[in-house]
């Protein structure tokens, strides 16, 4: 046995990879070799730790010292100090913003302390490309338990009892869904993993696939056993090359060990998986469109019923769950439904992984128990608003979700509460916005996305989103009337009521919720021709504050339309009629005397 005294875990998630973790890893290899430590210190590339804001992340075990924003230049010092001299390199530790204290250990950082990492329990701990490490962390024990001690009915009952609900957005009870597929008549049945994560800013599923692919495979194996399926598909976005690579490695390793394929663990149970790469259509995350895409058809949704449980892939009974749902399964089987029931609320059990982004200090991937107040996620885990500005809204559930305002901050984050507030749990996007965010602009952003991603099949979605977007454009330019707000609301409601699939039915949510919670802001645009957040360019005017202007003429010289006049050493003036709002004057001014208002 080779003995290693220290392990350096370098995050190889997509977030840290893009901030340079690969180069850091190579530098570490070089430096360890140079110092002659390469035999006793081992480098492990792990999946995402979630704290992407602070990447590239490097954690040194056994001490568990957590280093943030590690650059290639830091490596010689890091190796010399920590690994040669045994001293923690203070300057690379995370600084708790509130106390300004440097925090050496992972679990002591607020960002992690408030979390409950069940689904992400292996992410960042194990090397995702080694099945051994997954097995060492009790991997495939749940599968063995299911095959050895439980009937398919027992498994379904256990999942039902756990209260697990679909993590893809709608929150349908997973056990019930499995039961339907199990009862559906037919020899051939499929299980599918929906890994077509497409919400802008959401990367929960990618991180699970990259950091702990085996937990998804194990979940699918258990599901397949429960419903009586021998074949499955993982539909993953082709834009997730690392996730796909690791899935393929995991699949090959599982096959080699006989955990995938024929007669798994010596039983009669046979199951294997295909990985299908999607071409990047958001709508293919909708289950009927996803199945059409696997079948080689254009990815367009169809009407339900029939539900996939009865008529799915190639007309066969099919059970579709998303990555995070599958990732919960092995934990539940291994620890029992009762254990799982201690997390979350009465109707929303367990945890939910969110991608926390936007104007919040700590961004990244967070796993919290269901029912946690929104305020805690934003102010404790996220450590509040960037630059200590005022909180304005939080968008939950991506383009299908809604914008909640300050009044909803104490709302419990669970399926029911979010639904009643006009938002949805969604797949887990959480975008925090501050006072400098314009809500009309936010609605425009999300509609730009859904407009581009609508499949074009049904009228309300194809034509309606376009018209909503055009009306929002008018509002952001101060055009339109207050009656138009009612018209927009009626149009949004019609789309919600009549669209064919989930994409269309939820696309108006950003409009409906911003109208519900921020109507005054819309009115300000239309009635007062003013954008309160100072975002909508058409409504802003450049203005020179006379008290600050020194009359240096720098602005007048760069103005392309000659809109700025004034004598040397006297305050200048902008003629709003001539101004084309290019902003050149503002850049040229050395005294910050030009403002937008």
């Amino acid at each position, binding site marked *: 046995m080779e003995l290693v005294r220290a392990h350096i875990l370098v995050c190889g998630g997509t977030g840290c990879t893009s901030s340079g973790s690969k180069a850091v890893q190579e530098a570490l290899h070089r430096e360890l070799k140079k110092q002659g430590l390469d035999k006793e210190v081992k480098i492990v590339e792990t999946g995402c730790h979630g704290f992407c804001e602070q990447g590239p992340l490097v954690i040194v075990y056994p001490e568990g010292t957590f280093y943030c924003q590690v650059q290639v230049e830091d490596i010689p010092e890091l190796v010399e100090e920590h690994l040669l001299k045994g001293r923690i390199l203070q300057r690379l530790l995370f600084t708790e913003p509130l106390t300004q204290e440097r925090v050496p250990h992972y679990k002591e950082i607020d960002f992690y302390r408030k979390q409950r990492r069940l689904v992400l329990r292996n992410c960042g701990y194990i090397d995702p490309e080694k099945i051994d490490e997954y097995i060492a962390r009790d991997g495939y024990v749940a599968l063995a338990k299911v095959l050895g001690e439980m009937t398919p009915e027992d498994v379904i009952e256990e999942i039902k009892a756990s209260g697990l609900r679909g993590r893809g957005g709608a929150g349908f009870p997973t056990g019930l869904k499995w039961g339907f597929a199990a009862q559906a008549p037919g020899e051939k049945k499929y299980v599918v993993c929906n890994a077509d994560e497409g919400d802008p800013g959401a990367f929960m599923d990618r991180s699970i696939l990259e950091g702990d692919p085996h937990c998804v495979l194990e979940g699918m194996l258990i599901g397949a056993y429960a419903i009586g399926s021998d074949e499955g598909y993982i539909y993953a976005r082709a834009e997730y090359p690392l996730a796909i690579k690791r899935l393929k490695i995991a699949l090959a390793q599982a096959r080699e060990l006989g955990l995938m394929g024929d007669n798994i663990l010596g039983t009669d149970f046979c199951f294997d998986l295909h990985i299908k790469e999607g071409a990047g259509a958001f709508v293919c995350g909708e289950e009927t469109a996803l199945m059409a895409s696997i079948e080689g058809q254009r990815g367009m949704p169809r009407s339900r019923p029939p539900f996939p449980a009865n008529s799915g892939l190639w007309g066969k009974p099919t059970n579709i769950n998303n990555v995070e749902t599958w990732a919960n399964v092995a934990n539940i089987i291994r620890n029992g439904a009762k254990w799982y029931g201690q997390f979350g609320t009465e109707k929303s059990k367990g945890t939910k992984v969110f991608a926390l982004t936007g104007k919040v200090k700590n961004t990244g991937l967070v796993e919290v128990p269901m029912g946690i107040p929104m305020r805690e996620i934003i102010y404790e885990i996220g450590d509040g608003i960037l630059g200590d500005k005022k909180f304005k809204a939080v968008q939950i559930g991506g383009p299908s979700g809604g914008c909640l305002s300050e009044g909803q901050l104490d709302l419990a984050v669970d399926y029911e509460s979010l639904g009643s507030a006009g938002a949805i749990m969604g797949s887990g996007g959480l975008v925090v916005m501050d006072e400098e965010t314009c809500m009309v602009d936010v609605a425009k952003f999300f509609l730009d996305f859904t*407009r581009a991603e609508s*499949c*074009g099949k049904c*009228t*309300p979605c*194809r034509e309606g989103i376009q018209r909503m977007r055009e009306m929002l454009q008018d509002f952001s330019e101060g055009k339109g009337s207050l009656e138009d707000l009612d018209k927009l609301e009626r149009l949004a409601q019609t789309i919600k*009521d009549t*669209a064919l699939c989930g994409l269309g039915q939820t696309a108006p949510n950003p409009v409906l919720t911003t109208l519900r919670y921020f109507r005054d802001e819309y009115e300000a645009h239309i009635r007062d021709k003013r954008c309160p957040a100072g975002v909508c360019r058409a409504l802003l005017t450049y203005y020179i504050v006379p008290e600050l202007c020194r009359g240096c003429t720098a602005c007048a010289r760069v103005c392309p339309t000659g809109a700025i006049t004034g004598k040397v050493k006297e305050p200048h003036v902008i003629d709003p009629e001539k101004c084309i709002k290019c902003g050149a004057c503002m850049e040229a001014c050395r005294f910050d005397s030009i403002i937008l208002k």
Partner: protein
Amino acid sequence: MKMVNLTIDGCQVEVPLGSTVLEAAQKIGIEIPTLCYEKDLSLATACRMCVVEVEGNKKNLPAACAQPVMEGMIVHTNTPKVREARRMILELMVANHPLDCLTCEANGRCKLQQYCYEYGVKESSFTGERRRFTVDDGNPFIERDLEKCILCGLCVRVCDEVQGVAAIDYSDRGFDTKVTTFMDRGLADSPCVSCGQCVYLCPVGALTAKPSKGKGRDFEVEKVPTTCGYCGVGCQLALNVKKDKIVGVTNLPDNHNQGYLCVKGRFGYDFVDSPERLTTPLIKRDGEFVEASWDEALDLVAQKMAKVRDEHGPDAIAGLSSARTTNEENYLFQKFFRAVIGTNNIDHCARL
């Protein structure tokens, strides 16, 4: 068969389990507007005109064409909410559709026009971007004007599911979605067989039968049921006649051909008024064709056939029958050869 009872607009109806609300409504004569529904084709559930209110469903307005019936279901097809939704959908369609009904070939049979009339949609209150396309008129029989297309998808489905050709399908996404041919090359450069099923099913003026253009609209023509003379299938069709001239052909559904036709039956009627068409038998006398009566002509043929048989025996004559004749005629023809002429030299072109 298990039956299900439900209430639609206060009327009780019993239908087989597995029926849809639309089928149940049709059974008791309640009309629900549809643009993308066709009973022979797969469901698209795309137009959303057939939305209805189902008691207990607070989530949305389901489409009647896809909503399965359930025991005790209570459906309302004409509430203010439903009408408002349909009006909005029509406004959305009209916002992206030329209002040139004055010169549109579909005027009078256009379902969009009909529903706009019913729901009082004069014009759209939405102004904004409109799709722009050039007309695809490369095919000699079918003209496609995609600006009028409402993307109901009937043409796509009939081409694939009935004709088995799949010359057209959707391309692009969202607002830019269109029905197109392979690589957008146009119908003329596609596997299209010009059967014209798509033209017949198109609920608006996006697909036009070119030979009928400008010759009369639906309300001006008399529809004369007849049997296609091109082959033994004997498809039933309706000749569209205006002032004693055939100006077009439309489907005559509920027949053995379910109304569907091929390119000959649908577009091949111009011979009827051709000056070159034979109207009497001709007999060649002194190297010239001379008009004759049917009696004269048939007598001549009978006389010559009898002569050949008498001089050279029955096997000196052979008969080849045509696929354009009916089964009954083919039966008589072989009977004539075997029983009257006395030979087995009889064959049929379709056997080759």
